[in-house]
């Protein structure tokens, strides 16, 4: 049950996917990374752990999430579209899959507390949720700018019993929240697990988070089979750090399906980035000529990240997956179209994937293609922002 298809197989012993990945962390954190790797390997091959993980995701997390045919959007675009509904998972996105796994692991390691970084707050809310469920203390680091943009998500985390710490360093957004969480982890590794929110960071995180998210692709492939659709021609997902994309790709990496990750144009690590080292990993990063990391800029906080998970960097350079980017202006139309035609308001992150499909239908996507869209999250968290923008436009 736990095995990923062999194309997206395990990284090497030191966590490399081709030239990317690895571990680039202060020595203070190395023991914790090593401990985590051992613990995860052990847990992931333990049937009892697998059973608990699956049971919690089923009973608490709302899995399996359905695959929904999108008949009206399909008609409009001349495609055969299906959506994997991570928006229906508990807390409203795929993030829960990862945090359930990591909090169970935290308990297994005998730790009593988790910390996490968050951008818009989705991963923070998910972490606070799982921590509440398992009785772990929880502290979430969030850029001060984001705490102000996402007041309600801060309150949501507080309701769930978590402490939210506004990060005032650097650009005061996600990138700095990661830095701060790492800094804090240094001082509390003994009783605290750092619950990283995407397929990034030092080994084993990129691999572990992909494994924990692979349930998306594994489910979807079986569901499409059961629905008589078979293997899709195309699998499309938005990419911030890349966890929802990695999760869905994992189910199709060894099929004939084209895999497409859609980045925000203002945070396009594949499109505009180059190899570099940040946040514990070697990957593709947006950086200036001197190797200083640049700030990403996107309408969607969840894609507002200057890097991408190392496995994606590998998939991109090896050609197994393609990465495209979509600008802020195209995103709102996509959000509106999916809402009006299919009754699903997607997250702004997800809307990037929708926008790319809209744009390329009949172009890069041949008419009649069977397309699986990973609907990574719901848009409820974004409606206030979208409303402001649309009002501003008027």
């Amino acid at each position, binding site marked *: 049950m736990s095995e990923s298809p062999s194309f997206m197989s395990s990284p090497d012993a030191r966590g490399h996917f081709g030239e990317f990945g690895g571990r680039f962390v202060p020595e203070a954190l*190395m023991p914790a990374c090593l401990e985590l790797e051992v613990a995860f390997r052990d847990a992931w091959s333990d049937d009892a752990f697998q059973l608990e993980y699956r049971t919690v995701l089923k009973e608490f997390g709302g899995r399996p999430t359905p695959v929904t045919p999108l008949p009206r959007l399909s008609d409009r675009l001349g495609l055969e579209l299906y959506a994997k509904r991570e928006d229906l998972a508990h807390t409203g996105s795929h993030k829960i899959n990862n945090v359930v796994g990591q909090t169970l692991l935290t308990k297994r390691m005998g730790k009593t507390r988790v910390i996490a970084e968050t951008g818009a707050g989705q991963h923070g809310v998910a972490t606070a949720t799982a921590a509440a469920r398992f009785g772990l203390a929880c502290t979430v680091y969030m850029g001060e700018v984001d705490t102000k943009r996402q007041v309600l998500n801060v309150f949501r985390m507080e309701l769930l019993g978590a402490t939210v710490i506004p990060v005032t360093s650097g650009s005061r957004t996600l990138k700095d929240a990661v830095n701060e969480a790492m800094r804090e982890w240094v001082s509390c590794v003994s009783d605290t697990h750092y619950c990283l929110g995407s397929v990034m960071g030092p080994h084993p995180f990129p691999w572990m988070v992909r494994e924990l998210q692979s349930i998306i692709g594994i489910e979807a492939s079986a569901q499409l089979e059961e629905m008589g659709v078979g293997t899709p021609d195309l699998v499309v997902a938005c990419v911030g750090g890349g966890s929802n994309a990695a999760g869905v790709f994992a189910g199709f990496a060894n099929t004939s399906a084209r895999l497409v990750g859609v980045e925000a144009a203002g945070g396009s690590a594949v499109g505009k980035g180059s190899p570099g080292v940040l946040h514990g990993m070697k990957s593709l990063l947006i950086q200036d000529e001197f190797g200083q990391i640049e700030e990403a800029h996107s309408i969607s906080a969840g894609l507002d990240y200057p890097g991408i998970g190392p496995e994606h960097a590998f998939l991109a350079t090896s050609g197994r997956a393609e990465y495209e980017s979509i600008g802020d202006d195209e995103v709102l139309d996509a959000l509106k179209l999916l809402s009006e035609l299919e009754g699903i308001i997607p997250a702004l992150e997800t809307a990037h994937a929708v926008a790319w499909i809209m744009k390329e239908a009949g172009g890069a996507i041949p008419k009649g293609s069977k397309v699986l869209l990973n609907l990574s999250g719901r848009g409820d968290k974004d409606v206030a922002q979208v409303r402001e923008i649309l009002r501003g436009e008027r």
Partner: protein
Amino acid sequence: MKLLEQQLRSLRSSGRKALVPYFVAGLTPDWTQHVEAAVLAGADAIEIGIPFSDPMIDGVVIQEGVLRSLEAGTTLDSICKDLSSLSTHVPLVAMTYYNIFFHYGLERAAGKLAASGITGAIVPDLTIEESREWHDACDADDIATIFIVAPSSTPDRVALLASGTEGFCYASARMAVTGRSADAVDAKRVIADARAISDVPVYVGIGIGTPEQARDASMVSDGVIVGTALVQLILDGGDVRAIEDFIGSFRLAIDTAPARSDFLSDAEE
């Protein structure tokens, strides 16, 4: 054995405890004069901090210094240019995050450092496991790669790092980012573990903020690194004179230390 380590070993042989101040390069236009002042006041080697946008292991003070320096336009090249005007006899050690060198090109970076008189490098996010390429790049230019050991390092890892490090072994005094005060118990074990494996000099850093802490740390090690407190002084506008006084007070405390330290016994109470 690389030049840096030869020099630091002979310093130890001379019976002198090393005092190593850390400067954020480019923080002020006259930063090289700050370095010279520190040497004048008794510094035995200098850590040259090359600013990186995401200083993951640094605390707020150094972050602030790094940010200001970046805003002033500091780059690896500008730092090396500044260093060409520096006249000093003590070893210079670069301290930065790996991406700066990686992006510059590892061999090109090592050559550049060497040409500027730098003989060692501390790269806190470069783990020993990932250090092979950098190490190879440095060998031609005789640049020493210095590893940090942490209180959380298992004895196995301390052994690995203490035997892999060149120049000195950087013992972080506590599980925290730079800028928090030292924890005696943490430092004690790491130093003991390192010494059990290797006779490379061991310097204590991270958390040394006062002359007293420096004195105590020097009594159980071969030297101390002072970073945050000095950067704070410069951020607060401290001039060459103030830096001389500051370093002088650390020098004095270290040189007048009794044979055995309270730094450890205190902590054991």
